[in-house]
């Protein structure tokens, strides 16, 4: 049962991911990508990681994709006027996609883990409480550090888009 769900979800994930890439209209891409993110959230739910799934939806679908959509619309890019890459480049892209997929998959298939048993600790490790504890105790430093990251990107975004005044 759960396996079937997994396969269905996976198919959706991969399919929408492909569609994201293949659709000509960036708006369509964005929509497909949102779908893809939702399916990934589905995967998270299957892991019983509800908090993560929600955060995922909020951040990716809610923030990042919206930002992208805004940009697309601001720039009036919702046209299917993208000229295709030269055919040679596209073939190269397809070939290298096949190659990289083959290499990675082959590597992973070759690298079957020795043990096939999965431990079940029975402990709660992914509830909000636990995550909060881990995040704000063990991972307090990176958590704070992430603020620097966000600050940088903020300053950066401002710096890059700020119209310059002939200033004092």
């Amino acid at each position, binding site marked *: 049962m759960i396996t079937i769900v997994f396969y269905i979800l996976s198919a959706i994930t991969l399919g929408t991911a492909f569609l994201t890439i293949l659709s000509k209209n960036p708006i369509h891409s964005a929509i497909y990508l949102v779908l893809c993110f939702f399916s990934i959230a589905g995967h998270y739910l299957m892991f019983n990681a509800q908090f993560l799934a929600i955060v995922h939806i909020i951040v990716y679908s809610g923030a990042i994709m919206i930002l992208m959509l805004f940009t697309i619309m601001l720039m009036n890019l919702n046209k299917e006027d993208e000229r295709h890459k030269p055919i040679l480049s596209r073939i190269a892209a397809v070939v290298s996609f096949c190659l990289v997929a083959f290499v990675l998959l082959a590597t992973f298939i070759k690298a079957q883990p020795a043990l096939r048993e999965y431990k079940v600790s029975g402990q709660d490790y992914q509830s909000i409480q636990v995550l909060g504890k881990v995040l704000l105790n063990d991972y307090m430093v990176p958590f704070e*550090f992430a603020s620097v990251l966000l600050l*940088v990107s903020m300053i*950066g975004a401002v710096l890059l888009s700020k119209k310059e005044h002939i*200033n004092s």
Partner: protein
Amino acid sequence: MDILIAIAGLGIICLVAEIFNLRKAIVPVTVAGLLGVLAFVGAKIFSKNPDILGLGFDKEPYINMIINDKFALSFSALFILLTAFLVALSPEFHKNHKAKLSDFVAIKLFLLTGAIAMISFSNLSMFFLGIEILSISLYILAASNPKDVKSNEAGMKYFLMGAFASGIILFGIALIYGATGSFNMLTINAMDREALPSWYNIGAVMLTIGLMFKIAAVPFHFWAPDVYEGSPALSTATMSTLAKVAAMASFFKLITTLNPHLPGFLTTINIIAVLSMTIGNLMALKQTNVKRMLGFSGISHAGYMLLAFQFRDLTFAQGNLFYYAFAYTLAGIAAFAVVLYVSSSKGNEEVYSFNGLGKTKPLMAAVLTCALLSMAGIPIFSGFFGKMFLFNQVLDKGRMILVVFAVINSIIAVGYYFKLILAMYSKESIENKEDNNTVPFVYSAVAVIAILINIGIGLCPELILQLMR
């Protein structure tokens, strides 16, 4: 940890100072602050108990995130020094964009925190955040002249490829986590390599690839020359000095800590090292843009630094890498100080702009010459010792062939370094004689100080080497 806080604090101060209209104070305060932090780092290196302030940062949980060993501290000191130079150069460089000055300075400071996190991490999350802060700051710096088409292109290229590389790094981290169940480097390092699933090795290789991109090693180097050329010169200076050695040091630390037991891994690194040296040097031969040339030269230097992975004694390897990085970056800073001057007075960085510099600005020409000689590995400049220590280490491991390649590359490198020197000393300036604008004080000061430090550590390599030991 305390270093990170201090520097991030400095960054905030910058931003606040702008709000309070203290623009003039930003740079002096920052530089002074950085030098203060540098002194602090120095004290930490030499004191027995690194936790000088007694804030408990060397205990749980901080120790799981940031570890202040000599390697980390030494490199931190170098990064702080470099940032001090870069910040000092900023006001002159951005004199037409005074409003943005605080942003630039703050970004550089945050970039510094990222760099320090990258080398003092003891948890992969810190590493990842550090490298991302560094990268994102650099994307911004690369694109920081939004009106300039070249700067746009550079930023875009760097961003797209950098994000791509970040994905690969992240993938590698995930795999390592999958194999070990931990992000903590100490825990991972203590594990039995043979018992780990081979995801671990794949993850290590992925990380390697990602970091190869950051240090611009062949075949992940394509971005470097383009971005170096397109970015504003000061950003290029940052990339080619601070960012490059930060990535390299972090790479070194990461790989030596992860220590994958993998046949062919070191061979791969060696091949990449040789390729980087060779291609970097060959491509640099025909360049006419100095920034671009230095970009290719940086690729070859990355190749040299990759030789540091051939070691028998980790401490010495660390010391040698640090020395090389120190020598290379100081030469780079000195060179870029001159490039900044030329580019501001001539409007571009083409080689012909340097014509006749030996006559018009002998000091600048002399500094640039010294810097180039150092990069080329001519003694008494520290670049020579950097190379020599690396060669020594590699030969100690018995990898003769690598050294031979490195040597052949050193020969090729002379070709383009001397092209620039030739231009300065044997060609007449194309411009007419009234080119009598004086060199801004900060440029010459930074150039001279940097090159003096470079020569100084060449005269007394012990100063640097002993930091690690």
